[in-house]
């Protein structure tokens, strides 16, 4: 696992956040909000790689690691946040013009180099889509560099689908296949119903030359990884993005320790083969 030194922010101290301003907000689902933020002054965090995350600081409440869903050349960051605790509650309550602190970007991103020339399978569950969105746009930008592209996106119910309109626009492309499924739905939903694993048999890819990118709940990633492996894909070519409570995000505090690795420093993206034995251990 590559170990990187703590990344200093432009403020010079690795734990000091840079002030950012909320430019706009969008309600994705009843409990999920997307923030577009931009540097308050001249300082900004370094350019991120797809799959990396930033620590967002709600002043007076605390910090939370949030995947970077998009970064514009002028340094605007897009983060999609679900309200699950006090910090994310405070972050999602921010309105345009409010200030928050940002540190990062941190972690190892998705492995594009290894994926070039391969068929691609992307499986996102719920809020697993935002960290995978940069992957999807990277593939769109260099479509000729990849083989078949299969995207499977699942959520609990239709109202829990984030980026719904954007996903619908992706569906109009003829050079990729997208399947959207929910675990359960009412009669106003005409799409697929069933857990994400039920859509895998329809995915077309050559298992001998496929790279898979998975992000979502751990149990989903394990089950999907096992199903993809059963189709013949090497577990080293299946990449998962892990999530744990983090404090420092620079490999010092140990809050995100997962067996022998620190998710913040060594991940959050890992080959499934590296973590598979740990994913079956209770309460790691």
């Amino acid at each position, binding site marked *: 696992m590559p170990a990187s030194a703590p990344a200093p922010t432009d403020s010079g101290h690795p734990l000091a956040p840079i002030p950012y301003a909320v430019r706009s907000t969008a309600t994705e689902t009843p409990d999920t909000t997307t923030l577009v933020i931009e540097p308050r002054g001249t300082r900004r965090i370094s350019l991120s790689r797809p799959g990396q995350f930033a620590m967002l600081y709600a002043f007076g409440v605390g910090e939370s690691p949030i995947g970077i869903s998009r970064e514009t050349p002028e340094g605007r960051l897009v983060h999609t946040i*679900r309200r*699950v605790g006090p910090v994310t509650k405070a972050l999602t309550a921010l309105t345009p013009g409010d200030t928050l602190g940002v540190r990062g970007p941190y972690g190892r991103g998705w492995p594009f180099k290894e994926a070039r020339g391969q068929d691609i399978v992307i499986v996102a*569950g*719920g809020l697993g889509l935002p960290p995978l969105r940069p992957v999807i746009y990277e593939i769109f930008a260099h479509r000729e560099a990849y083989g078949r592209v299969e995207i499977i996106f*699942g*959520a*609990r119910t239709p109202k*829990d689908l984030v980026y719904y309109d954007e996903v619908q626009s992706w569906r109009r492309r003829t050079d990729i296949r997208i399947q959207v*499924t929910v*675990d*359960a*739905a*009412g*009669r106003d*939903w*005409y*799409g*697929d*119903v*069933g*857990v*994400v*694993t*039920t859509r895998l048999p329809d995915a077309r890819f050559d298992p001998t030359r496929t790279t898979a990118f998975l992000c*979502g*709940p751990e*149990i*989903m990633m394990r*089950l999907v990884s096992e199903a993809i492996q059963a189709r013949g894909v090497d577990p080293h070519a299946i990449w998962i993005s892990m999530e744990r409570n983090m404090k420092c995000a620079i490999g010092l505090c140990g809050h995100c320790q997962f067996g022998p690795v620190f998710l913040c420093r060594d991940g959050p993206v890992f080959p499934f083969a590296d973590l598979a034995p740990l994913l079956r251990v209770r309460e790691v």
Partner: protein
Amino acid sequence: MTNEEHARIVERIREHPFFRGFDEEFVESACADAVERRFWAEEVLFREGSPSKNLFVILEGKVGLEVGSSDRPELTVQTVGPGEVIGWSWLVPPHRWRFDARALKPTLTIALDAENLRHTLSRRPEWGYQFMIRFLPVLAERLENTRIQLLDLHAR
């Protein structure tokens, strides 16, 4: 039904992933009394509790399997599409459907006659065994998917 129509049904059943590789004589026998049935979007294939008279083989379209009760709206718990089959209630007593099925878009099926199918399977135990070996994974997969749904992957 004309011989031509029957031959077309047999051909489509042979090509269907669920029946691929089955003994030709079995397929021929299983297709006796089978009919092609088309459903419009929103049309109900069957209701929970009604007699289960068919095994539906999906050729085109999409069908939602629903559960509901008098005090809450129907909930779609699974969708089934081309290459799949619907229904095991016809196989075991009391031969009544355990859920509702509704077409979510125009859907083409072949409805195999349950009584004929049961008779065919019991007449030749080796066919019955082959059929169960093929049918069991469908049931196991649905059970597995239900387990995963119970895990509530997206719970927070």
